[in-house]
């Protein structure tokens, strides 16, 4: 009994530094990729240039129409649309880009599990979406006089990173499934609008056909934008934050399984470095 306890204690002690090392790897990878992404004109345009334009369209449509409501509602939605776009374009092509850069084999051969550096990359692409949120809120305040008074600042500060992390985990699923599909690049172009639509970024899900609501539940952007909106405009943001955390764990598990399958197939067919 004593020896079993000792072995268990030793295993736990050995796991703690490994867990810390992997956590550090995610942190360093995230910072490196974030710096790298922030140098790209395309990433900056997608993250910070286009969402304010979509916010402008939303404002004029909401103002020209008969819909009453807060313009902050539209600003948060348009800003979060940019977070999704950054995740979609950044994470969707993550493995393919690693192939082109010639670092995919090094990542797979490294002692750390492959999902760790990839998670760092997808988290970094989702984080660039924060530029979008900041740019859109700033644009809305400066040009349209949108009041940026946040009802629950504490929950807002919690909701934003949780929403971004959940999209980063969704990015892991995208990157690990898109890699097996050669035309994923074209597919990412198609997925931008439908996810904006079904996750209620600007259009309430209740306006859409009922089956869309079930689909929206399994998509983290639905809960991410709800959490941020509820924190900013008032309402229950803890439940959507909880859903973001739950979906993040599910995505991490699914992404890891898909990556394991990709790695197995790539090793078996010797296609790891095929760009």
């Amino acid at each position, binding site marked *: 009994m004593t020896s079993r306890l000792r072995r268990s204690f030793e295993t736990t002690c050995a796991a703690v530094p490994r867990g810390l090392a992997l956590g550090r790897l995610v942190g360093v990878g995230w910072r490196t990729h974030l710096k790298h992404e922030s140098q790209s004109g395309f990433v900056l345009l997608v993250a910070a240039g286009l969402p304010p334009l979509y916010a*402008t369209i939303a404002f004029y449509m909401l103002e020209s129409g*008969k819909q009453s409501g807060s313009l902050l509602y539209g600003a948060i939605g348009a800003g979060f649309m940019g977070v999704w776009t950054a995740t979609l374009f950044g994470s969707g092509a993550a493995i393919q880009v690693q192939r082109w850069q010639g670092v995919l084999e090094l990542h797979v051969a490294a002692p750390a599990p492959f999902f760790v550096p990839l998670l760092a990359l997808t988290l970094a692409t989702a984080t660039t979406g924060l530029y979008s949120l900041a740019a859109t809120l700033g644009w809305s305040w400066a040009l349209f006089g949108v009041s940026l008074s946040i009802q629950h600042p504490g929950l807002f500060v919690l909701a934003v990173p949780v929403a971004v992390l959940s999209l980063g985990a969704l990015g892991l699923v995208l990157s690990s499934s898109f890699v097996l599909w050669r*035309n994923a690049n074209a597919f990412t*172009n*198609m997925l*931008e*609008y439908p996810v904006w639509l079904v996750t209620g970024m600007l259009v309430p899900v209740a*306006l859409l056909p009922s089956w869309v609501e079930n689909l929206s539940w399994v998509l983290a952007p639905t809960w991410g934008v709800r959490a941020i909106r509820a924190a900013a405009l008032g309402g229950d943001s803890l439940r959507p934050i909880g859903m973001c955390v739950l979906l993040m764990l599910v995505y991490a598990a699914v992404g890891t399984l898909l990556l394991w399958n990709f790695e197995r197939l790539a090793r078996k067919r010797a296609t790891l470095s095929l760009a």
Partner: protein
Amino acid sequence: MKTLRLLLVSGVLSYRALFNWIHPTYYVPAMLGGPIFQILFFAYLGRFSRLDDDAFFVFGNAIQIVAVAGIFGMVMGVAGERWAGTLSPLLASPANRAVLFFGRSLPFLVNGLFVSVCGFAAGWLLLDFRLEASALAPLALVVLVTAASCTAFGLAVGSVGLWGREVFVLANLVYTGMLVVCGVNFPVGRLPAAAQLVGRVLPVTHGIRSGRALGAGASVGDVLPDIAREAAVGLAYAVVALALFRFFERDARRRGTLERI
């Protein structure tokens, strides 16, 4: 005859070689899926905002999506020469530049027309949008002129790719900017005067206005001035595109940057 051959053959060959989305597995999601979802997104946003009926958004977006082929296609078709490493041999050839590059725009004009037709069909199938049979032919003319105008504009944007590397950034910015200033999803009268002016000199604006008028029962005669304005905008961009080609070609030769990727 030789000029016609250069116009058509080089256009088709360039389209097949440089248009990355030509295969159906790319074409359907990128050229049809994305634009159709754009129509649905704005139609539902229109329902939420209670700005106007579905037809307003179908006309606006189904005509504006000619820019997918006109701008992104032309950027691939023209700026793609640099990425493919064929720009230097192309510019070293004695072929007439105008014929060469206008030949490249023809497949994208047809493409734009097709994408727009699919957009209208999707609006008819999925949204509350109906069109009188008598309006079909004039609307086809409007879409054709708008697609030509947009392709000429895409030629000008694509020519920037002969000079700079981040041309897709410009293309995305221009495409999304058109959604703001061209009256695609809300009346341009609400915009500041400067933005309205930009909208008037961009393709699509006059085409969309003609399309909506035809949908409301106007005759071809009523919309002819707008169609003429759309054509004039396209013609102006064709001239600008040629001038840009000549300028960028000279500049790239002077700086030795033709093969820079």
